């Protein structure tokens, strides 16, 4: 695992795609790992009472996957300094979350990566993650 140097990154670079199979283990495990016991994230009956067919991923898990996606590309010593997230439709077990990203800005040692996550409902998440890279 090596960390990208700032000088090696250009605006427009596409990150390798990542498809995540959404399982009940991921939805429930992610919610509990983030200490989010809101019933709609682990109890199908509670999710159905809100009009959705199944438990759905909590925002912390979505953010966690987005963060992992960017640092998997940037490398372990990249430092995430901020993230802006727009939330879309739900992500539920049985669906595939297709995560894509590209570099939209590179300035003064910091890189902005725009990340989208889509599933069969359409857009689940759109995010801009800012990482500081060595070698500016």
């Amino acid at each position, binding site marked *: *695992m090596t960390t990208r140097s700032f000088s090696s990154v250009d605006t427009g670079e596409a990150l390798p795609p990542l498809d*995540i199979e959404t399982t009940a283990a*991921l939805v429930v*495990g*992610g919610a*509990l*790992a*983030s*200490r*989010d*016991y*809101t*019933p709609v994230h*682990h*109890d*199908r009956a509670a999710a*159905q009472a809100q*009009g*959705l*067919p*199944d438990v759905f991923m909590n*925002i*912390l*898990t979505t*953010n*966690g*996957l*987005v*963060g*992992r996606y960017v*640092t*998997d590309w940037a490398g*372990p*010593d990249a*430092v*995430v*300094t*901020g*993230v*802006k*997230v*727009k*939330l*879309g*439709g*739900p992500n*539920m*077990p*049985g*669906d595939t979350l297709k995560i894509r990203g590209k570099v939209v800005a590179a300035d003064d040692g910091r890189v902005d990566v725009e990340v989208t996550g889509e599933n*069969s*409902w*359409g*857009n689940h998440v759109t995010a801009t993650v800012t990482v500081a890279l*060595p070698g500016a």
Partner: protein
Amino acid sequence: MLSAEKKKELEEAIYAFVGKPIGPPFTGRDVVNEPMIRQWCDAMGETSPNYLDAVAAEKSPHGGIVAPPMMLQAWVMQGWEMHEGYDEPKNEEHRLHKLLTDAGYEGVLGTDTEQSFSRYLRLGDAVTADTVIEHISEEKATGAGVGYFITTRATFTDQNGAELGWMTFRVLKFIPNQPQQAASDDDGAAQPAKPARIKPPMGHDNSWWWQACTDGKIQIQRCGGCEKLRHPPRPMCGACGSMEWDAVESSGRGTLHTYTVIHYPQFPGYEFPIIAALVDLEEGVRMMSSISGCDYEKVEIGMPLQGVIHEDEDGFALPIFRPREDSQ
């Protein structure tokens, strides 16, 4: 719907929450620790040695194990008690939500969030969150229903009072306008129900027009008094005041009066971008619709269009327009 008076009362009550902390600062029950980090990394598929491997992390710029930055809020989540829900409000944010819920704004939907990290968290850090209700919008109409956007801002500090970062979070508290149907589930593996287009309101004065679409026709209402054509359907002629009417079928031939391209927000049930169009039909009325079968970059005001009835997967039918060759 609320009466104007009740609404004024509600808005006075909710806007009084702006600027209030949701409660006293909350310190997470556990300091930053390896088991919780490992559990997070397992779920997220994180493999970075800086989170998981003490020996490797020592050589990193952090000098030891750190927590994944996106975990920041997890250190101050309430945890187990959340499963009981908050029918009995426990803080000012719950009280604000309950006021709205009791007034019919029952839905809640996270819309966006922003976080900034001042430094990565190290083992033993104790995280405290101080959360304030920062902003409440005026009432807005959205795809999910009418409601208010509520923004909270949490500031995170460590055991020395130094800032670790902040987070804003915006939710829509709304009156649901279209409960989604839960998919039936016979084998225990529910399939997400495919979202569909938001249906227009249909009543006595316009449902005949939508029924005609289902029958494959684009209709135009015609005055029974003066024969003037009008669209969209309405009970009275604006020219002569007659309430008598019948309808004629449109050829669907028209030209583009104006348009806009909608890229965002992307509601489920639609294909984006949407080319929303106002079309002048050759019969002389103007119709709100959309254009398909054409790259939005190639759309031009004045272009010839042909209207056709499009049927959604759920059977809902509506006119859409395609580019028309002049020779047609």
